[in-house]
């Protein structure tokens, strides 16, 4: 499938690597070209400079033909806005994003997004590690 990833931080770059290795067509979008250094040398996808909350940048990244979109920048609000544009303006079938704030995650889940709160998941994992 065609996937657009917004944010090429550690998580974004790692996800891009995994999906690329699985044979998907991956486009990574980031406002800072320097962040693309995190992509592996054999990365077969496309790295594009651009802001994922800008319609035109998303179009350039191929959002109109994309099967999936994921937003993993540092900003919850940026992720939420980009994910909603992907879902409601471009009708991308599969949309998800990272939201650090667990309460905001709940709200946006009720609004039809499928956000993941790394805060909650990571805290649970740490607890298991300490208690287990």
């Amino acid at each position, binding site marked *: 499938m065609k996937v657009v990833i917004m944010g090429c931080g550690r998580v974004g770059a790692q996800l891009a690597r995994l999906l690329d290795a699985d044979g998907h067509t991956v486009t990574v979008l980031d406002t800072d070209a320097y962040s693309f250094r995190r992509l592996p040398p054999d990365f077969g996808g496309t790295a594009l400079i651009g802001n994922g*909350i800008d319609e035109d940048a998303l179009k350039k990244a191929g959002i109109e033909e994309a099967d999936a979109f994921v937003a993993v920048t540092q900003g919850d609000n940026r992720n939420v806005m980009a994910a909603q544009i992907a879902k409601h*303006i471009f009708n991308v079938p599969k949309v998800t994003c990272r939201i650090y704030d667990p309460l905001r995650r709940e709200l946006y889940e009720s609004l039809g997004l499928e956000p993941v709160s790394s805060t909650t998941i990571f805290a649970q994992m740490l607890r298991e590690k300490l208690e287990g």
Partner: protein
Amino acid sequence: MYIIIVGGGEVGYYLAKALLEEGHEMLVIEKDASRNEFICDELGSVCIRGDGCELATLAEIGTGRADILIAVTGDDEDNLVACQVAKYKFNVPRTIARIRNPKNEAIFKKLGVDVTVSSTNIILETIAEEVPTHPLTHLLTIRDKGLEVVEVKIPPDSTTIGKSVKELSLPLESKLALIIRKEHKPTVPTINTILQAEDQVIALTPSKSEEALRTALRGV
């Protein structure tokens, strides 16, 4: 009325000041400590420190009974989320967002924000009107019809001066609505109206014919 303002920058501060003077109950939410302190010093205890996108903060200040939430931070995405949280979590009846990127206007509407104010567009329009040589000024957009109400000034060196309206090669879809002349009452032009220097022509036109209309009215 209880009004919540998210963002205590220049816009937030002056807005708060104006609303207070009108006698409304209002509260500003501002992240920055020194900005927060400044607003409280100037306007009294009407500012709290916090993130206006966070549910806990909004719950604490009684957003559930707010009549309006106005998000005026400098970041479009923050304004969007503040309005969405207010609307969908706290059922605030009216949400207003400031936007910087004019392209976001349609997106915000689709995502549930009631009113958007594009500071960029307002500044551009105001400047365009003040630039005397500016050939064509947008007065009003009739969105659902794709039409623009525009004003074209006829400069003294225009080749169309002395010509009648029927002699101009106006685009078919454009209609002249009004001609305003110095020291005259505004008149509705007919096909025999003669153009004069310094005329202000108000016309209705589809956006795509703007350039053709401007050329037809002013000559090349």
